[in-house]
């Protein structure tokens, strides 16, 4: 009886500790040098989109924030992630609004379903350009229901619209749910990492990838920062 109780207590401690000792990797993505000038987009041929923008929107190849922050960088656990194969069930969306893709970079898990929404008064034809997944393009007139899609192999996929040449975005299809996309201040946060050794990769559409190794030993937050070298062209 006593042994049984002790075993139970030990098990509870084990489960509790694995929940308690959930580490976090967080940090900031920045750049050095001069990033390329982002050109304004002339949408005059699509008035229903042009009128949604009080000032012309610019290209989003390199989006920066204050203090050299670099946005739209996908930071993810590329090796050692405990959740490979667990497909999240929550819905994620990729919206076409004002003839732009929102968000510019959509990160997702392999086989995770995502909705493509047309929020414009014009037709779009979304055309992702995968190299290892299956390629397709789909027309979506205004008012039609969302297109449901998923990818079964990890890949960074460029996305374009076959009707509006300036529309441009990316899908980041990953084997893990431990990812984040850096926002205005360049910040990212990868929480709920059990103790272990991880490789963290940061991917930017123009500046490529960087990696860092990190070891989580317990309930701690490890700082990892990435700095990309920007070029004016």
């Amino acid at each position, binding site marked *: 009886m006593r042994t049984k109780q002790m075993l139970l207590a030990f098990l509870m401690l084990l489960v509790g500790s694995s929940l308690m000792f959930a580490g976090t990797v967080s940090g900031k993505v920045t750049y050095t040098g001069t990033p390329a000038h982002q050109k304004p987009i002339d949408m005059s041929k699509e008035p229903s989109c042009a009128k949604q923008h009080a000032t012309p929107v610019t290209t989003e190849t390199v989006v920066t924030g204050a203090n050299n922050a670099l946005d739209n960088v996908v930071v993810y656990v590329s090796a050692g992630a405990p959740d490979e194969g667990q497909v999240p069930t929550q819905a994620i969306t990729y919206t076409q609004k004002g003839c732009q893709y929102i968000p510019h970079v959509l990160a997702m898990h392999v086989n995770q379903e995502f909705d493509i929404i047309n929020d414009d008064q014009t037709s779009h034809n979304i055309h992702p350009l995968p190299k290892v997944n299956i390629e397709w393009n789909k027309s979506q007139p205004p008012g039609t229901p969302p297109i449901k899609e998923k990818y079964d192999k990890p890949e960074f996929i460029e996305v374009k619209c*076959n009707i509006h040449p300036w529309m441009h975005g990316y899908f980041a299809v990953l084997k893990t749910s431990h990812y984040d996309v850096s926002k205005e201040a360049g910040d990212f946060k990868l929480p709920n990492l059990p103790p272990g050794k991880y490789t963290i990769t940061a991917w930017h559409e123009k500046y490529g990838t960087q990696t860092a190794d990190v070891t989580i030993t317990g309930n701690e937050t490890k700082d990892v920062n990435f700095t990309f070298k920007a070029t004016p062209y």
Partner: protein
Amino acid sequence: MAKFFAVTIIVIAILSAIPILRHTWVAPEDISTHGGLIDEQMSETMAEAGISFLAAQFVLAFFIWKFSNPGPDAKIKKFPGGAKGLVIAAILVVGIEVMALGIFGVKAWANVYLTPPSADAMPIQVQAGQFAFYFRYPGPDGTFGATHPEMISEGSQNFFGLDPEHDVDSRDDIVAAEMAIPVNKEIHLLMHSKDVGHSFYVRELRVQQDFVPGLDVSLHFTATKIGKYEIVCTQLCGLGHYNMKAYLEVMSQQDFDDWMKKEAAMQ
């Protein structure tokens, strides 16, 4: 019954001629220096084809009226010379008509295509691609930077595949999604397609020219009236063809210079 058909043909022929004679559908205003000759040619073609059409209908009605109820002893009359003569006569008549239109019309054609642009014509490059037009001005240095198709990146607005990092000429090139030109200034339009066949059509300019993939096509024109006009693709080019358009802005020289400065600042 035959007489009823004959009368019906005459009525239809006359009714269809009325809107043409009354100028119900007039061509849009001509804003080019060469358009007058083209309009003249179109009117001549319409007059010639219209007269031929009416004459043919009247002859047809006459034959139906007169010969559709022959008596039991009536003989079938043949065209003098038989079918061979008829065909030769038709070829001669139609051939002379088409040749005449061509000979008289060549002046209008030659004005745009067979004469070179003047030395001070302003060069503008237009690139057609599914499904938008983009225009390039050489900038202050007057020289277009080289294009590198493999460097085309629509996501970063590098529609022409320029290489500003290595090519100095391309650094001041101005690329725009609308075509601004000064009024009364000759434009030398250099056209090429990025992908499939397209067409550049501005009805007020009386310019309609196909883009042929792999060919550099050029033409020249002078716009004479300030205003905003639509440039449309008139060659079925794919899914988004219906939406392939841009705007031509004809401006005063001062406005054009200001526009250039504004565009240069945005590059």
